[in-house]
């Protein structure tokens, strides 16, 4: 795993690049650990409070520890009318957690999202940003069991 200091340093020259740095951190750690946030604040010359304000503004970024695989269920209107609610329930049942939680083994985190721009094949979920199309409740076990 790349060191967060190196990840942040790789974005250092970019004006306003703290969000790019957060992306780089998150792609390795799945969230932004506290030490990494503090380091990023230092490198990009802002207070920790301000950096925290930036990180928490964006729904794609998380300052809380999350699972290895982050499942996001789209609940915007086109996915909603296509049956997103039933899919969320199926995922919650299969994983035994509520939306917003992480499984005890640290494998899956379940989140809601708004439209991810794949509305040709609703309802849509993403697993670590990879979209999966036309999802129905009965597909959930076979989809999720593929993640080891």
């Amino acid at each position: 795993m790349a060191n967060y200091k190196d990840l942040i340093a790789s974005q250092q020259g970019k004006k306003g690049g703290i969000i790019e740095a957060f992306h780089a951190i998150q792609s390795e750690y799945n969230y932004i650990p506290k030490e990494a946030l503090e380091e990023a604040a230092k490198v990009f010359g802002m207070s920790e409070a301000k950096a925290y304000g930036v990180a928490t503004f964006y729904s794609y970024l998380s300052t809380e520890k999350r699972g290895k695989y982050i499942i996001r269920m789209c609940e915007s209107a086109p996915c909603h009318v296509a049956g997103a609610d039933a899919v969320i329930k199926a995922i919650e049942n299969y994983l035994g957690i509520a939306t917003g939680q992480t499984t005890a083994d640290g494998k899956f985190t379940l989140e809601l999202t708004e439209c991810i721009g794949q509305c040709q094949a609703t309802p849509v979920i993403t697993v670590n940003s990879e979209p999966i199309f036309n999802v129905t409740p009965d597909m959930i076990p076979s989809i999720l069991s593929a993640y080891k």
Partner: protein
Amino acid sequence: MEEMRILLKYADQINPESAQDYIKVGGYKGLEKARLMEKKALIEEVKKSGLRGRGGAGFNAGMKWSFVPQDAPVKYVVCNLDEGEPGTYKDRIICEKNAHALLEGMAICGAAIGSDQGYIYCRGEYPFIVKLLKNAVQSAKQAGALGNFDIEVRMGAGAYVCGEETALIESIEGHRGEPRFKPPFPGVAGLWGVPTVVNNVETFACLPYILTNGAQWFATIGAAKYPGTKVVTLTGDIVNATYFEVPTNMTLRDVIFKLGGGIKNGKKFKAVQVGGTSGAFIPEENLDTPIDFDSMGTIGAALGSGAVLVLDETRDIVDTVARITKFFEHESCGKCNPCREGTFRMREMVQKVNEGKGTERDLESILLLARVMRRASLCGLGQAAPIPVESTIKHFKYEYMRKLI
């Protein structure tokens, strides 16, 4: 009426990353031409084409560029690829099919306003498009197609409001994506305080074709006051849930029933929401309206991003609108009161009605709050948030009435 493909003519026939492929089908000719023109004449040509913004506001592109002060030493060209409007994926399609048209369009804008630095702000949900665009820029540079114009791709992080141009600028600067007060407009003081043109992907991607074929050619396509084509995305209870590029004078009915193949599973049409989640719901009787910006305005709707969400006769309008109010509550950035509190209260009241616990008083309060939000919100998010609610109370009031106690 049929599809008319200009931006998507070579979809799936060329590699979107490859400048060579694009050049083989006539690409980068428009930029060559633009570079030989005087800046003023180039802006005039774009103005004359009648090209208007495809990101929602419908502002004349050449006009927008003409506000940029000529003598500023540094200026930026920014492409809005935030595409957060639910039901919309046309900018992704344009990138996946014809990315170089976007790059060429940005460079043409650069030539017109005297800027050599462009930024593409791509939403965080499209990491694969970020990759595609970075490769495309690389390929264009290797082919020498962009000259001294440079393009950097930045990634957003899941905030709908960052599609608003000043919030987008804040986000590129590394801040929370909260809209700025206007004026000053970005054309005068934008990214890092310098003059900045912000245009949508589709707006930029039209420019190579305008330059290559002439403003006159473009001005005669589709609707006279909003000429050209529009890429629309069809979702919901529709047979062909896919994208189409259509001339802007095509009617909604043709989009839904001819291209879209009509309603799925042999059901009947109930409503269509055009322009994404912030758009109005439109009943059957208004379907013979052309999709262009001004015609949609005459029926109290907006073309917006070109998203077309179709609902069949069995759909519960109030339930759908309740979901939409939750979207706005979630996406409100919280900077101004009418929107921060308004979206919260709006969701609360619509949800109450949807759960069968509302009264006629609630409907009145909803409409009053809608007026306040429309007039007093700082940016387009808060101003548009009540539109789905108001338009459905107007056209589908019986759906609300039957849920009241």
